[in-house]
């Protein structure tokens, strides 16, 4: 167990293992995303009330779900880097932020486009939309905070603290549809009890959610690899790697 943690803290080991994971995970993810999108766009029935505009659900919901899950990953990485001063946790924290920002942005934009034909408006200050907008600013805030410091150790510490403080927003996003009942409907997919979504729509949706999780994992590893190479540029193993490729 401890040797595993020890290895996890080793940049060359992490770089190598992530490379062999990405070699099969990345192509599989891209194929799954294309297949899932095709399934949702062309092979599912239309919604009886919303018609075809509901097809946006197959990107909107997965993006939002994984944007939230990504925040957990980031906050946990932040906690680990604060408590145990683990360098690779700091790398993971920094790698999460741009992916989370991109997914939150996708959730907001597709939601806005979905809102126009469904609710008749691009934007409302609905509780869930507002709390998702705050999530976007938290992610962007962490990206900006990293750039603002010259001292990268201090930047990492500040970002870890910000990521932990920002977790306050996460339960608010989850509960927003129940606390402030407005345009967003309460959750249709439930782990306990009957889901209120038909199987013909549920399966492609679950498939896309899993694909987006895999996408997050791929992007996280790729960002971490790039970050490792930048930080370890002066070490012998990176130089050997660089000269091998050049």
């Amino acid at each position: 167990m401890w040797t595993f943690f020890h290895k996890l803290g080793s940049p060359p080991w992490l770089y190598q293992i992530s490379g062999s994971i990405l070699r099969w995970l990345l192509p599989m993810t891209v194929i799954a995303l294309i297949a899932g999108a095709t399934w949702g766009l062309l092979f599912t029935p239309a919604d009886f009330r919303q018609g075809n505009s509901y097809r946006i659900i197959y990107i909107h919901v997965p993006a939002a779900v994984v944007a939230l899950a990504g925040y957990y990953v980031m906050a946990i990485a932040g906690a680990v880097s604060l408590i145990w001063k683990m360098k690779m946790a700091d790398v993971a924290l920094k790698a999460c932020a741009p992916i989370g920002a991109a997914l939150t942005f996708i959730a907001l934009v597709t939601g806005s486009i979905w809102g126009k034909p469904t609710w008749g408006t691009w934007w409302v200050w609905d509780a869930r939309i507002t709390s998702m907008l705050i999530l976007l600013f938290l992610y962007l805030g962490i990206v900006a905070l990293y750039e603002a410091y010259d001292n990268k150790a201090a930047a990492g510490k500040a970002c870890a603290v910000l990521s932990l403080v920002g977790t306050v927003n996460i339960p608010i996003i989850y509960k927003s549809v129940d606390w402030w009942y407005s345009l967003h409907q309460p959750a249709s997919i439930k782990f306990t009890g009957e889901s209120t979504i038909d199987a013909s729509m549920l399966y492609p949706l679950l498939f896309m959610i899993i694909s987006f999780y895999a996408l997050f994992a791929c992007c996280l590893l790729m960002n971490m690899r790039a970050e490792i190479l930048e930080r370890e540029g002066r070490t012998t193993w990176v130089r050997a790697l660089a000269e091998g490729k050049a």
Partner: protein
Amino acid sequence: MYFDSLEAAIQMDGHGVFVWAAYAITVAVLALILIAPRRRARRALRHAAAQARRAQSPTQAGASA
């Protein structure tokens, strides 16, 4: 397939412009976050290789600088 024709799939009973726009924006953003780290990694490796060359031959580096 749910739609009768390609035309119907593009139109989606008037919702096509919203649905396809949402998917197009998503594809663009996902492409960006998949390509950006690769470019960063490649640049970092190039940088490291240049540094390694300078370290190996300090006199040459001094002459060219």
